[in-house]
């Protein structure tokens, strides 16, 4: 296992497809939530997944992160199939993840949240002795420094501002040196300025480390500013794929999506 | 808050006790009895028990006590848990320095205290626990028991049951040791007395949780000639009511343990069964001088009639006083020697703690239930001396490994 992990963590070059999704499909009681979707994300780039409510974004996302098992199709990470794996196995393959509603451990400090992920990554979780607080302290602080949270390392997650929580989540998601980062509505519930800051930070880290980023987003400003390319889902079908500019001009997209009035803002 | 103050007081009094303990001469103060019982868990029996006990205590102390010393009782509630009873026993012996232990309602509580007594070489007079193991299988030098045991009660009833024409018997008993051994002895002794009987159904409802309708139906389905019942308390009331409505008892003989005791008969009121053969206590009708004296004193003190529990409490205290008087000492070994073969006065007449197995020969009343003035009562009763309902000595020696 450790050999595999070592190999899989070889630095990816920009341009390599890190994530390849082929013909992914999922139905719920006869309704095709996701219907034969294919796309790929390259290392160091940010791909936005957009679509109106009920388009199948969340279903699609949950098939990538392991929460849902696809009916059909395959998901390749660095050329290895991860289709139908459990979330923790997907994580071990090198996928980091943030949640739409921030998910942190409230009984731990900011640093401990990151340390927890580092402990898991190092395979030390079954150790019943030795203080967890003393493990990977420097590495945790380094990650927190990257997201600008190191000053708040000793604070409880329960009392942080929402934007800061998002940053902590980002640091946690980076703890396993992921090749791919999945971010579900990363800026939901944030003030406009915070949104731009967080996504700029993400883009910067992604580019520096060669991480592929796939994110869903409602805010079109964020999408058009921070994505290298955009895919659009509608009723389970992939209806457009291209740069932000291309998608913006796509008449199909305008018809089903932009025309619906949801040009910016949340839900 | 309470703890703080209490533990503080505890430490303070500890220091106070530690120093003068040598000075406190043995035998100067009152004789102390540590009485452990399930007062809160089994109040129906044990409230009268305590009243009977306190009556005897008052009489003894009013007469000057024993050996010129008053007797004092420290009551402890075990809440029905043997482990708490053991804790109280340790506390009573070590902290309160009681001279002997007594009490016990549930069999497992009695056995736990008996084992404690054996381990700590302290006298234990078990008043109520009926389990045969208290004096037989787990019997030991330091444990004596007052009440007629499960075996004895079953033997008294078998004598009557064997006279009945019934061949097919159904049995119902609460599902714990008392119920199980009641049924076991009844079957064994009845089979011996009357080899052609057969047992067609057995029901073991959980204690206090009888599903009376379904239980009655299950017994009815086996179409027995007669029924042997060991349930008591609320189980009995529910069983009787459902049985009456559903006609289970019509045309059938019923033989029933303890049902004639006021504790269990009185709550049934006018619905008390009629014609059941039972062991019990016809308190209003016993006119022996000992009993009349006891009953009058009890009524005078509590403005209430005595229950069987009152008799057990009264007799236990009196037997302890008799033992103390005979031993002339509170030394445990001397008390044990005194108790072996001790004759003591009881509300039912004189009885004796047998030397061979430490079981007292206190008996029980066997008779038939009836309803008089809207209340259950016993008729055609006779007193059965416990001495006559015990196995012969050779058998007892086999049953009691402790010797």
């Amino acid at each position: 296992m450790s050999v595999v992990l070592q190999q899989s963590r070889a630095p990816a070059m920009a341009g390599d497809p890190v994530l390849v999704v082929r013909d992914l499909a999922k139905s719920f009681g006869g309704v095709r939530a996701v219907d034969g979707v294919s796309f790929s994300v390259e290392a160091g780039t940010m791909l936005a997944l957009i679509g109106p409510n009920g388009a199948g974004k969340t279903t699609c996302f949950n098939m990538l992160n392991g929460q849902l098992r696809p009916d059909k199709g395959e998901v390749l990470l660095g050329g290895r199939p991860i289709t139908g794996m459990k979330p923790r196995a997907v994580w071990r393959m090198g996928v980091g993840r943030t949640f739409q509603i921030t998910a942190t451990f409230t009984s731990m400090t900011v640093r401990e949240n990151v340390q927890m992920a580092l402990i898991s990554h190092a395979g030390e979780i079954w150790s019943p002795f030795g203080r967890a607080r003393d493990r990977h302290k420097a590495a945790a602080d380094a990650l927190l420094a990257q997201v600008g949270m190191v000053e708040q390392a000793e604070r409880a997650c329960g009392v942080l501002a929402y934007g800061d929580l998002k940053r902590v989540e980002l640091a946690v998601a980076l703890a396993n040196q992921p090749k791919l980062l999945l971010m579900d509505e990363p800026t939901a519930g944030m003030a406009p300025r915070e949104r731009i800051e967080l996504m700029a930070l993400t883009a910067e880290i992604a580019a520096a480390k060669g991480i592929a980023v796939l994110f869903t987003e409602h805010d079109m400003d964020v999408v058009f500013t921070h994505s290298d390319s955009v895919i659009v889902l509608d009723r389970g079908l992939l209806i457009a794929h291209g740069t932000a500019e291309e998608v913006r001009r796509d008449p199909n997209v305008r018809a089903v999506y932009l025309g619906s009035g949801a040009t910016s803002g949340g839900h | 808050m309470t703890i703080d103050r209490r533990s503080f007081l505890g430490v303070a009094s500890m220091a106070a006790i530690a120093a003068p303990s040598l000075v406190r001469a043995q035998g100067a103060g009152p004789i102390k009895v540590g009485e452990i019982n399930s007062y809160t868990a089994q109040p129906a029996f044990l409230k009268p028990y305590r009243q009977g006990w306190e009556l005897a205590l008052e009489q003894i102390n009013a007469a000057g006590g024993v050996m010129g010393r008053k007797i004092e009782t420290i009551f402890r509630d075990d809440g029905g848990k043997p482990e708490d009873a053991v804790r109280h026993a340790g506390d009573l012996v070590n902290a309160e320095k009681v001279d002997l232990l007594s009490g016990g309602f549930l069999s497992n509580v009695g056995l736990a205290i008996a084992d404690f007594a054996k381990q700590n070489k302290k006298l234990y007079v078990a008043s109520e626990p009926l389990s045969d193991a208290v004096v037989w299988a787990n019997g030991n030098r330091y444990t004596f028991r007052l009440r007629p045991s499960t075996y004895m009660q079953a033997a008294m009833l078998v004598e009557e049951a064997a006279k009945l024409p019934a061949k097919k018997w159904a049995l119902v008993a609460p599902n714990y040791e008392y119920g199980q051994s009641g049924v076991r002895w009844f079957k064994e002794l009845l089979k011996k007395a009357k080899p052609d009987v057969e047992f067609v159904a057995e029901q073991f409802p959980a204690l206090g949780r009888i599903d009376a309708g379904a239980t009655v139906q299950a017994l009815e389905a086996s179409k027995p000639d007669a029924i042997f019942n060991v349930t008591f308390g609320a189980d009995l009331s529910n069983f009787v009511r459902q049985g009456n409505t559903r006609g289970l008892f019509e045309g059938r003989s019923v033989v029933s343990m303890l049902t004639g005791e006021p504790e269990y008969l009185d709550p049934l009121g006018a619905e008390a069964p009629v014609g059941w053969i039972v062991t019990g206590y016809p308190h209003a009708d016993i006119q022996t001088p000992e009993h009349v004296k006891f009953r009058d004193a009890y009524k005078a003190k509590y403005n209430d009639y005595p229950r069987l529990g009152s008799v057990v409490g009264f007799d236990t205290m009196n037997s302890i006083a008799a033992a103390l008087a005979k031993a002339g000492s509170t030394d445990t070994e001397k008390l044990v020697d005194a108790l072996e073969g001790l004759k003591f006065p009881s509300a039912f007449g004189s009885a004796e703690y047998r030397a061979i197995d430490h079981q007292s020969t206190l008996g029980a009343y066997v008779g038939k239930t009836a309803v008089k003035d809207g209340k259950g009562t016993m008729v055609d009763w006779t007193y059965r001396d416990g001495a006559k309902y015990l196995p012969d000595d050779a058998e007892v020696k086999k049953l009691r490994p402790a010797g």
Partner: protein
Amino acid sequence: MIDLILTQTLNGLASASSLFLVASGLSIIFGVTRIVNFAHGSLYMLGAYLAWTLVSYLGPADTFGFWGGVLLAALLVGLAGVLIEVLILRRIYQAPELFQLLATFGVVLMLQDLALATWGPEDKLGPRAPGFKSFVILFDNRFPTYELFLIAVGPLVLGLLWFLFQKTRWGTLVRAATQDREMVGALGVNQRLLFTSVFAFGSMLAGLGGALQLPREAVNLHMDLAMISEAFVVVVVGGLGSVTGAYLAAVLIGILHAFGILIFPKITLVLVFLVMAVVLVVKPYGLMGRAPVGHARGHGPAEPLLLPADRLTKLAGLLALALLALTPIFAPDYLLSTLTELIIFALFAASLHFMMGPGGMASFGHAAYFGLGAYGAALAVKWLGAPMEPALVFAPFLAGIAGVVFGWFCVRLSGVYLAMLTLAFAQIAWATAFQWVELTGGDNGILGVWPSAWASSKTAYFYLTLGVCAVSIVALRLTIFSPLGYGLRAARDNPLRAEAIGLDVMRIQWVAFIVAAFAAGIAGALFAFSKGSVFPTYMAIPRSVDALLMVLLGGVQTVSGPIIGAFAYAGLSEQLMKATMYWRFGLGLSIVLLVILFPRGLVGGSLLLVERWCRRPEAAATARLAAEGGR
């Protein structure tokens, strides 16, 4: 034969009715307020006693007197519910999950003694119901008409409840609150009034259930506890918050009882728990229950920060240990045996806390492992002739193995469902000890489990206990702050996030379950040798409840809480039991007062006070959370 089957079915349906009334009230209360109302059985008992008094007063033979008395009794119990809600529960809705259970248990204790003082110790056999005194012939058997009436009451009440919930505004609110509490708050509904009315309504149903038993069952002081465990089973088997589910489950259990009597007359008591175990393994949310929306532990405040002990706290701990170690020099024997017991309970409580606090898995059946440890020791002594030392080593493994098996099933569930499954397993273990007379001696237990000669003095055994328990408690503590303990807390705080950073949540919880069982087994084995005997009561429900109370009283969110809680609770009940025959009332009242004064537990509450006193510069909220979590 067919006659018998039909009659037993009717018998089952008749007993199902009262069970359903009580259980539906419990279910509705839980659905809206998330309170596990331990006092619900007591309200049922109160209903029966009140009905007895009122019916006797109003005239039992008179139709109006009887039914008026029954309904009035139910209303009065509803009023008692209002009192309990307004005086006690309302003050502690913000306390951690299950904390309210502690308060309701205090009410149980108080009502037991109040009933004893008011109605005396003798059972009360109520009058028969006017118009339903006799029987009809059904399937060649006499069948009481009152039982037929009861059979009709169940569906009737179910129908009324359905109407109430579907057709009235209040019912709609109740349904909405059951599904999503925050939403109701957001809708601007008067939440206080809603909670009070729901509690009153649920109480009234329990009171009615008790009052209707009057013609059927002698009213007695054991009705409360006899009913409560079964009502819980019905609620859980039916699915929390589902009234229809409660009816189905009540019928299922009533009928199983009736037939169980025919087939296995000796195991009727455990049968219901076997059924519950099977149902929960197959359907984790009961027959009609649905998986909770979103976060499984969504209600109650978020888990506060947990910090390792600071120097001062450590020093205090060491000091306490040193003081305990010195006790034998000045303390007499009896104090030593009491302390020995308290120390054992501290380990027992700490073991439960390990899975309940950091693990977030509340157990209603932790006594199973305590008892199995005790039986492990006793069986080794009795059957293998083992001396104390190997018996002490062997015993926890018996508990640990049970933890492996039971835990495997339990960690698949969460919340109250998990707790109830642990209860089911504990009852199965209890029934085994109770029924397997050849091996365990049944309820007479195993006697003669005394320590080896070197440890037989009170002082020696005290040191043995202190040594083993101190090492075990410190080991548990170290584990809480180890990577494994952090993983456990991660799994509790946010299982989704934990899985997303590669943690195998279920396996971590399973390991914690086993560790807790093993540690409880150590406590049980020590307890066996300190008492010299072992009984099924060691793993009966009251002992599980004791452990739960100790942990909650100390404060579930603190690490030293269970130890303080054990000393406080066991010490308090021991002193009260000695001091008064009405110790249950005293203990209940103390619990209720402590709960109101320290809604975070004794340790959590004291830390909060200290922290407020000091006024740290950090924002008040942080200070509060840190204080509550710490040490």
